[in-house]
Each structure stands twice: as C-alpha cells, then as structure tokens.
C-alpha cells in the first residue's frame, strides 16, 4: 500500500517558496528557534543526494530521461520507507509527463501540493539578483517554455543538483494548477504578505497538520521579512555563500515599477497575459 506523505511546495523560482518552507520548518520545530541551517535538511526535488541514497547509485552516470524516472522512484522509496513521517519537498519544476507517460512526481504517494505564485514582473529583479544575471536574461528565461535550471546539456552532470524542467512562468503555473490528480492549494505571494496568519493557517489545515493558532502567530512574527533579512545580514544564508548578494532581497510587492524598463514589462505581460489576468496581476 502506498503512503501519502509527500507534500509539495511548488513554485516558479523566487516566488516565496523559501518563505513558506521556513514557516513550516519553524512551525514543526519544538523550540521556535529560527536556524537557516535546518532548511538544509529539507528535501529539494532537485538534489542528487536523496536519489543516490534511495536508488543506491551515482546519479551523475544517468542520462536525463533515466534520471527523471529514478528520481520519481527514489521519492516513492523514501515515502514508502518512512510512512509515519510527512515530507515537504521543494520544487521549481513544472508538472509534466515522463517517458513512461506518468507524471514527474509519484502521485500515489502525494498528499497534496501547495503552489505559490508571484507577480512575474516582481520575479525579474529578485531572480536576477539571485543568480547574478541581467533583467533581460531573466525575462528571456521566464518566457522560454524549454527553460531548465542546472540543465547540464549533453549529460555533463557536474552539478550537485539535477536538471530541472522549469519551463516558462506561465507554463509552470498552468501545469500545476490545471492538473486534476492531486489536491492543490494555490496561494499568491502577495496575499501571503497581506494576511500571513490567515493564509498560513489555511496551509497548515491543507497539510493535515494540527492547527495551533498561537504557534502560527508566533512563527509568522519570527519570519517577518525584515527579521529574515537581518538574520541573513548577520549570519549569511547557505544558498548565497561566496556571494555579496542577499537571498532575502526585497520581499515586497510592486517593486517592478521602479526596476523594469517598458520593454521588459511589455515582454512579460504579452507572453503571460492569460495567467496574469486569471491571477489579477493585470486588468
């Protein structure tokens, strides 16, 4: 029998996924002590380490199609071997079919998906800062339906992360919200900013975790953006080691108005109008 203990935190990059991850990490901790290094223990869908461990192999020797199949099987193994544990898995991949015509995640082991989306116009500057690219390069990534993260073209598998099929912003959003096989909770980053207590409470309920209203309030207090930023300035953040840039950069909605050129704005809106309209990012 399959255990349904995988809970996906899915999003396009720089859409608030780490903020949600930090919330759950702290909410499920005993002491409410914010420690970035605890996030390293979470499962990243892109990581080679859980694949190598659960499939007992060196995943850098696999071709991309083989890797995707074994990645899904490794998550199934992890889930079936730890039936009493709930796993939060962060992913930036789109929801898509593998070569066996089955989805890229083990749906039979999945409890649900929390999909976080953010105004694509605000993603541009945040993403550019994160990976040290120009705004134009990021706009091209966001518009590209074939976009991969750590693509490792030609199976040059040198990264500790596996290739991740992210696709364009619109296709990423559509792929998750239009699938009908798994329960999904969709939340806009902007709504989370406006009313974090109510929205994090809904996420806890969706995750079938016991709701403790006081604890949610305390955690939300601890993960206010300014506090995360201050902590990063004092201690650093493991995803940005060796750079001068901040992971927690701005955390506000609407910053794009002072950051993007008209051409960049037009390029994003024209490419993603349909989804942006559905989620009320454009009129």
């Amino acid at each position, binding site marked *: 029998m399959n255990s349904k203990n995988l809970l996906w935190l899915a999003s396009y990059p720089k859409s608030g996924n780490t903020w949600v991850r930090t919330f759950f990490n702290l909410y499920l901790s005993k002491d409410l002590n914010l420690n970035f290094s605890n996030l390293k223990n979470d499962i990243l869908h892109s990581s080679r380490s859980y694949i190598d461990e*659960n499939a007992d192999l060196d995943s*850098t020797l696999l071709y991309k199609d083989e890797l995707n199949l074994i990645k899904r099987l490794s998550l199934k193994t992890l889930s*079936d071997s730890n039936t009493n544990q709930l796993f939060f898995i962060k992913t930036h991949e789109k929801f898509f079919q593998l070569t066996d015509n089955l989805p890229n995640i083990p749906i039979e082991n999945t409890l649900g998906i929390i999909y976080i989306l953010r105004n694509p116009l605000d993603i541009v500057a945040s993403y550019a800062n994160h990976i040290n690219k120009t705004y134009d390069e990021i706009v091209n990534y966001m518009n590209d339906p074939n976009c991969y993260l750590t693509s490792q073209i030609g199976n*040059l598998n040198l990264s500790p992360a596996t290739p991740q099929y992210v696709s364009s912003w619109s296709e990423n959003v559509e792929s998750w919200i239009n699938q009908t096989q798994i329960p999904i909770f969709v939340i806009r980053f902007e709504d989370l900013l406006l009313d974090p207590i109510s929205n994090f409470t809904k996420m806890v309920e969706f995750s079938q975790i016991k709701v403790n209203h006081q604890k949610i309030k305390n955690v939300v207090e601890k993960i206010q953006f300014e506090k995360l930023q201050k902590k990063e300035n004092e201690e650093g953040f*493991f995803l940005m*080691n060796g750079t001068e840039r901040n992971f927690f950069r701005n955390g506000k909605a609407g910053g794009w108005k002072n950051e993007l050129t008209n051409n960049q704005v037009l390029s994003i809106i024209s490419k993603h109008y349909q989804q942006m309209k559905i989620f009320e990012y454009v009129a």
Partner: protein
Amino acid sequence: MFKYFAFGLKIISDLDLPELIESQFEEYDLRITVGEIPPIVWDENSLHKPIVSIDKHNFLHKLPPATYLACKGNRIFIAPNQGQDFDSIRLFLYSNIFAAIMHQRNYLLIHASGVVYKEKLHLFLGASGMGKSTIVAFLENKGYEIYSDDVILFKLTDGELITCQTYPQIKLWEDTFDKLGIKKITAKKIRPELPKFGIKINKYVKGGSYQLGKLFFLANSSDSEKFQISNLNSIETFKILHQNIYRVQQVSKKLDPNYIFKILIEISKNQSFLIERQADFNTIEEQMEIIQTKLK
C-alpha cells in the same frame, strides 16, 4: 570465457571486460554470467524497494542498462535490458555490483582515490564531483604511482587493516582534460551519451595491501576563500570518513556497525587534511603544489 584480476579477485566472465586486467588461473573467486536472473530465496530480514532488493547474501539492482544480481560474494548474474549497450552494462557492473560483491566479502568501501608514494598509500577522499580523479590524473602525469580511483576497499583481518584496489581506470569528465592539459586521444567514453571518459592507468600499482599515509578530504568552500588547507584531528577525520562511506544503504544491511567503527578508527589514526575550494576554483596547479608539499 574471459579471465581477469580486479578488486583483489580472480574473475571468470561471460562478458568481455576490457577495463580489467587479463589474467590466467585455474580456480576463480567470482563468476559473472549473462542471462536470466535465477530465482532468489530472500531471508526474513530482506529489504525490498523499487530499485534495490537486499539481504545478507543477495543484492538485486534494477538499473537502466540491466538487472543485476550479486550473490554470496562469488556470483554475479546480469540480465541486460533490450537495446542496451555493453559499455553502459559494464559501467554499472563496476560502480554498483562489484561494490555489493565486496560488501558480501566483508569489505568496507570508501569514496577515495589513492596514490602510492614512499611505500605508503595516500588517500584523496570526497563525494562524486569533488575532484578525486582529477587529482590522481594530475599526479600520474607527475610520475606518481596510482593505487585506485574513486573507491578504495578496506577490511580488518586479525586486527590488521587491509587495503584493496579496484581496477586500473580513471574516469574524467570532458571539461577536466583542458584543466589538466591531458589529451583525450586514448580516452573512451564510459557510456555512449555521457561526456565522461575512461583512461587506462599506466602507472598502476598492481595488487597488495599498503600501510596508509596521509589523508586529504576534498570539500567545497563555504566562505569567500578560494582555497585553503587545514589539519584535522582524529575525531574530525572519523566524522568525515563516515560521510564518505560508499553505498551506505548496502553497508547498513551487510556490515556490522562495530566492524565499520573499528575500520574507521584505524583509518582515522593517520595524519589528515581538509582541502576546501570554491566550486569555480580552477587553478589546479596551485592546489597541487600545496598537496605535493604535504605529501612529502
């Protein structure tokens, strides 16, 4: 029937294994058969997962090129999947199934490459991608004798630490050749669609166990320093060694934790260094100069 010597074993095989050393002998230690996987009687403590099944005597691995079964440290069965090439079949045989055979023979495998210098075996340890193979390829070019690439095997016999090597090949990703200034002419891809190449080790130490010399642990730097080397005490060495155990899942099913502990303690007695480099640190000449100084 082909005859080889590798992993300290006399091997007879249905399959041509050109990466191993051809040998002549009458009695063998390990037989490799290509064909159907025979029925397996699993013991009550067996573990079954979608890709791997394992118990004390058997290890079944369903991999893209083939299904493999390693039994009792002396038999390997290979059932190739349709349309698969023999390069891929051999690659996973070497990297996964020989590991299972050696676990069944009570060896602990460590992620390490080794060179012999002044009659001692010096180790370079680290996970895949940390540069172990690059370092031994560089050292071979400088005239050092190579003991093993990627994996070194250990066991305790009457309290004595015994080392064992794998087979005479270094595997390098395509981008490493330029860094090392090595030509790719004699190298062959280890899988048809994988830009990783196997190079025969010419200065190969053949057989035998060696006393350990120095240990160099390779890690990515977590701060802004491009390259730094520091001493490790034996407790730190033990901890990092533990992280470098090869095929942890198999080990936990096959070897007694006390036995593993004793082996790691023995290895930890040697002088150790931690080498931390940023991921984009490319100046191999500079780091090798420091490593060679420490070796001497």
